[in-house]
């Protein structure tokens, strides 16, 4: 099993969520995070001043999938999350040694 961690634009989240479900990945966990990368940040203003905020709001979507499903999930996410502009985000793939369904105690792929 692999864990896919995709950091995406918040405004793309609904699309990614739906695309993943359509592609057979209903199970996801999401975080509201702030990120910095190559993107310059945004300019906010307060009274007479402007200031740059370099930590931007992002959504991190996390899903653990069977080894053979990794590519499909990655493609699904990239397809809808991509705008072509800096700040589209990153995806990381990590090894997972075990998965357990709390309700039943099932382990391994069948717990996903």
């Amino acid at each position, binding site marked *: 099993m692999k864990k896919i961690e995709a950091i995406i634009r918040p405004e793309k989240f609904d699309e990614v969520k739906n695309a993943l479900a359509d592609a057979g990945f209903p199970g996801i966990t999401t975080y509201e995070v702030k990120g910095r990368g190559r993107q310059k940040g945004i300019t906010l*203003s*307060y*009274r007479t*001043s402007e200031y740059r905020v370099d930590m931007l709001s992002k959504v991190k979507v996390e899903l653990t999938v069977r080894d053979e499903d990794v590519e499909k999930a990655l493609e699904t996410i990239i397809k809808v999350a991509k705008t072509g502009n800096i700040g589209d985000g990153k995806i990381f793939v990590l090894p997972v040694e075990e998965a357990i369904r709390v309700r039943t105690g099932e382990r391994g792929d069948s717990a996903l």
Partner: protein
Amino acid sequence: MQKLSGRRSIAFFSAIVLLATNAFADNAVSKVDSGDTAWVLVSAALVLFMTPGVGLFYGGLVRRKNAVSILIQSFTIIALVGLQWAAFGYSLAFGPDIAGLIGGLNWAGLTGILSDPNPVYAATIPQSVFIMFQAMFAIITPALIIGATTDRMKFSTLCIFVLLWSTIVYDPVAHWVWGSGGWLKNAGALDFAGGIVVHVTAGVSALAAAIVLGRRRDHGAGNLVPHNVPMVILGGGVLWFGWFGFNAGSALEANAIAGNAFLVTNTAACAAAITWMLISWIHMGKPNAVGIVTGAVVGLATITPAAGYVGVPAAVIIGAFASVVSYVAMYLKNTRTKIDDSLDVFACHGLGGTIGALAIGIFASKAINPAGGDGLLAGGASLLGTQVLAVAATWIYSFVVTIVILKVLDALMGLRVSAEEEEIGLDLTQHGEKAYT
């Protein structure tokens, strides 16, 4: 009595009637006019409501970790000054004059003076109502200052500071300008609703406090952004609402002067808000929401001293001009100085009150208020000079005495929390609470 009173005729007539109907009268409070009393009671309540309003306005502007701190500071100031006022503050400000400088302690404790009107101040309302209306001014003034000291001042020291400042700065200046026999009042200085007494004292003292306290440790780091803009806008709405009590209530009667004050207050606030919006739009490419609210507050502060003496066109000019000055002052403060008047109390209230007080010398007209004066445009040459005198005296006195108070307190109990406490935030370290869980 300072105000135009079409009701004097009725009062006189009532007096005659009372002679005739004396047998039926319980006592002599019949000079009380129920409409005026109703209006000033409501106005006092409205001004009280402004202090939590200031808390919200300021509370939204600070960071999350200091939100409880500034909100409870403003709330606590109500309680501290409310007690001080009853104990001796009112007497110092409005009691029998001593040398034009201060009121005597004759009315300390507020006993025996409540039911009848004090015709020197307000002939048609019970003195208790006048006392409470004035109490709310004494309360809100130090509550404005905390915008300059936020995020770093010890709560214990702040409490003592507020009590001392009210007693040594606010009460005397209120006496000078409004107290019967006060030297500035005698000199003919005009301050309808507290541009000098409230806004200049608060704004200049805030500047002094910001200098004495020094900057926040992370000042300039660019992360000092408002944690809750809706709270700022709500605070601005409460302030606008309450300011009608502040300014129109200062007529102390429900009459045409009150109506005029209400109208020019609203108009100046509108003009200032729109002006600020346009400046920020041009300057930064976007109309800044916090700025629009700030502009309104600047307009409200600036029209305050003039509200009973000027008309609608002057109100537009005063409001718009104040926004320009205040905007530029904030910009220069941020770019040219290291002063951390954190929420810009000086630029809003210090400059606002000053501009408004001087504007009286230009725009006031006896056609609007016979009990007022004539400014330059109405051919009155001397008023402006008197206003300059009053403003200058108040600037100097407020600035110097605030510094002295703070230096003494610094020596005795310390002004600032520790660096670590400042980093963690005042909510946790001063009050053991978190704003949101």
